[in-house]
């Protein structure tokens, strides 16, 4: 079924005519990649708007703009929209666009399923966002959906659970597709240890996805039956245990944070060698480091719940296991720095974002190690320190990598160079404001400001004001990004097929813009075109 479609297109290389055929029914990996990226951008702005309302309310102590219940709805849906609506679909979009071109495959292994897995997403988020307009409002128990609080929600519980089921199905289908593509569709000569790191990190991410998204689906299903069908999985009155939910949730939740960051590692591992004009330092070490991070992510989950009253042995185990992750992550950071070491570096926009990623993600990693220290975590738990930590790894980590990837591959997608001057403006505005936004939150947390509150004690005023100012500058700077992408899509200086002098990989051997169909003939790949072509 799936390959029949590919065959039809062999005879002509035109894009299907008409909006419905081109976008709604598309099975083309590039078009689906574009759809994913546009969807992610829209969700980034919806989730971002919620964040700005949150920061607006927190600009001053007291209640000015929103009521506490609506505030809680905003924090909950902001997280769900950013994690499942923005970051994950953006990386799936990049995978769709780039993986087939990077491994010399004509398309994804399952093009029809690819179409479904994208088109489920708008429905999932329409369902989730529609809860804002119901009486009782949107889910407000936090994105972690802890019982018993979540069980006290109204109708929105069913909508939230159903939306999460759909997102889960979509990501599982996407993951299966990526695994099937990478394992079966590589061009002859594209051995595993010649694959670009972006492909490697995505392959490992896809395995994480199929391992833990079903666990989340199970957890929210039990929430659903506890709420509507009188079961007592997490209901203490019936003999259930709310803490059990936290174990199940974080068994999903910790690998999930690597689902959000491993593809970012892949992107950065592509960009830094291209602009340092040196092959990546320690390619195989990078592959093994990624695999060990993925493995360790399954045995550290309870570091999110040090305060539930675990036995000492449990706290020690999860503390040391968590700190162990710093080793493979450190290997990656040092490899990136070593790649830049004595390289002939130039600082075009993708490289600037990549360097910012390395520096700022490392800050997020360090605050993560602080949080991993069980005795210290009792102080940090549920404070703004945690908020600062995960925004450093997710915004200046995952989101920065996505933006870097877009600048890096945009000329390949559109055939035009973006406006470098404007891109530098975008970068410097963003990188300064994002630190103004999130760095003070470390201090707020250490001083004891709890997260998820609409009002706060007056000793927290100054840092909250600074943080809110940073938030608005960062938020509005992203409009510049939209303008830049739109302008590049419309026109601009023609891009060559190589685009960047130091770029390596099969995607740079096809013309810019990349034709609708690439690598149709399964020709053997030329080692000289690959970043890791020589023996390792």
């Amino acid at each position, binding site marked *: 079924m799936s390959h029949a479609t590919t065959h039809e297109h062999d005879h002509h290389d035109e894009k299907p005519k008409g909006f419905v055929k081109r976008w709604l029914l598309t099975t083309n990996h590039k078009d689906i990649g574009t759809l994913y990226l546009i969807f992610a951008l829209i969700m980034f702005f919806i989730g971002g708007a919620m964040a700005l309302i949150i920061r607006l309310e927190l600009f001053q102590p007291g209640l000015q703009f929103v009521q506490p219940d609506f505030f809680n709805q905003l924090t909950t849906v902001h997280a769900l929209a950013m994690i499942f609506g923005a970051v994950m679909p953006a990386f799936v979009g990049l995978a769709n666009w780039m993986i087939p071109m990077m491994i010399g495959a004509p398309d994804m292994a*399952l093009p029809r399923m690819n179409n479904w897995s994208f088109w489920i997403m708008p429905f999932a988020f329409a369902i989730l966002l529609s809860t804002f307009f119901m009486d009782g409002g949107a889910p407000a128990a936090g994105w972690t959906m802890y019982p018993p609080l979540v069980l006290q929600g109204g109708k929105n519980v069913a909508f939230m659970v159903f939306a999460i089921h759909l997102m889960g199905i979509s990501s599982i289908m996407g993951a299966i597709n990526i695994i099937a593509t990478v394992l079966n569709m590589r061009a002859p000569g594209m051995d595993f240890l010649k694959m670009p790191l972006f492909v490697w990190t995505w392959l490992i991410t896809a395995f994480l996805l199929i*391992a833990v998204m079903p*666990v989340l689906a199970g957890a929210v299903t039990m929430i659903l039956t506890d709420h509507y069908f*009188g079961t007592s999985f997490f209901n203490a*009155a019936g*003999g259930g245990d709310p803490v059990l939910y936290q*174990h199940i949730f974080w068994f999903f939740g910790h690998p999930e944070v690597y689902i959000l960051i491993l593809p970012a590692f892949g992107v950065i591992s592509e960009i830094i060698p291209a602009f340092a004009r040196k092959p990546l330092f320690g390619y195989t070490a990078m592959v093994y480091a990624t695999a060990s991070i993925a493995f360790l992510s399954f045995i550290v989950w309870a570091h999110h719940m040090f305060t539930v009253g675990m036995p000492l042995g449990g706290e020690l185990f999860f503390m040391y296991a968590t700190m162990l992750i710093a080793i493979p992550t450190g290997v990656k950071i040092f490899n990136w720095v070593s790649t830049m070491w004595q390289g002939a570096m130039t600082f075009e926009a993708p490289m600037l974002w990549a360097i910012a990623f390395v520096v700022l993600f490392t800050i997020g990693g360090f605050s993560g190690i602080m949080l991993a220290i069980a005795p210290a975590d009792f102080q940090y738990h549920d404070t703004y320190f945690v908020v600062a930590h995960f925004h450093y790894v997710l915004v200046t980590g995952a989101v920065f990598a996505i933006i870097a990837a877009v600048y890096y591959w945009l000329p390949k997608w559109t055939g035009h160079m973006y406006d470098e001057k404007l891109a530098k403006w975008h970068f410097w505005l963003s990188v300064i404001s994002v630190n103004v936004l999130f760095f003070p939150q470390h201090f707020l947390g250490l001083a004891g400001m709890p997260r998820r509150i609409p009002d706060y004690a007056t000793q927290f005023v100054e840092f909250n004001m600074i943080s809110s100012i940073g938030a608005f500058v960062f938020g509005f700077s992203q409009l510049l990004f939209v303008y830049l992408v739109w302008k590049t899509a419309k026109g601009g200086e023609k891009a060559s097929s190589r685009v960047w002098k130091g770029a390596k990989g099969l995607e740079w051997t096809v013309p810019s813009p990349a034709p609708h169909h690439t690598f149709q003939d399964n020709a053997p790949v030329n080692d000289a075109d690959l970043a890791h072509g020589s023996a390792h």
Partner: protein
Amino acid sequence: MSQRHVDKKARKTIGVTLGVTVLMFGFAFALVPLYNVFCEITGINGKTGRVSASEVNQRDFDPNRTVVVQFDGTVNSALPWQFHPRQVSMEVVPGKLYTTEFFAKNLADRPVVGQAVPSVAPGEASLYFNKTECFCFTEQTLQPHEEVWMPVTFRVSPDLPEDVHVMTLSYTFFNKGGLTPAQEKAGQGSHATGR
């Protein structure tokens, strides 16, 4: 490379990955019994031991060692009861049998069934906290405005780790039958939570 060949290989990949997906969905549910077994064996999570009266006082213990046991009683918001311990804390000798009482009163105009769920903190001490008699072993039914004193008989094991000096026995009473306040207002029929 023939398209057929790829299809066959891809189908195997899809089969395996789908299998993993289904397995992990089941694993989420399997965690429920696994977790309970794990907690019972290790005694963590405040799940306390239960011994018969004859098993008690069969071992030597140090009559000079004392620990403080604190008592705490909470009512879930869905239960129209008053509930509290007679005394806030008592000093006990590990190895000896003690009895204390909890007070409960039904504030509603109809019979209500409640179930108390015990928890002992710190978690590592819960294995050594044994109850021979407890109102939490069964459901409690209180007639309208009925008041009761309910006894708890317990023994702290002499094997309790040396570094534990204070432990807390906490009960939360949940609505097992009868009516929630909202339903009471709406005048609806009986409603059972739990299984």
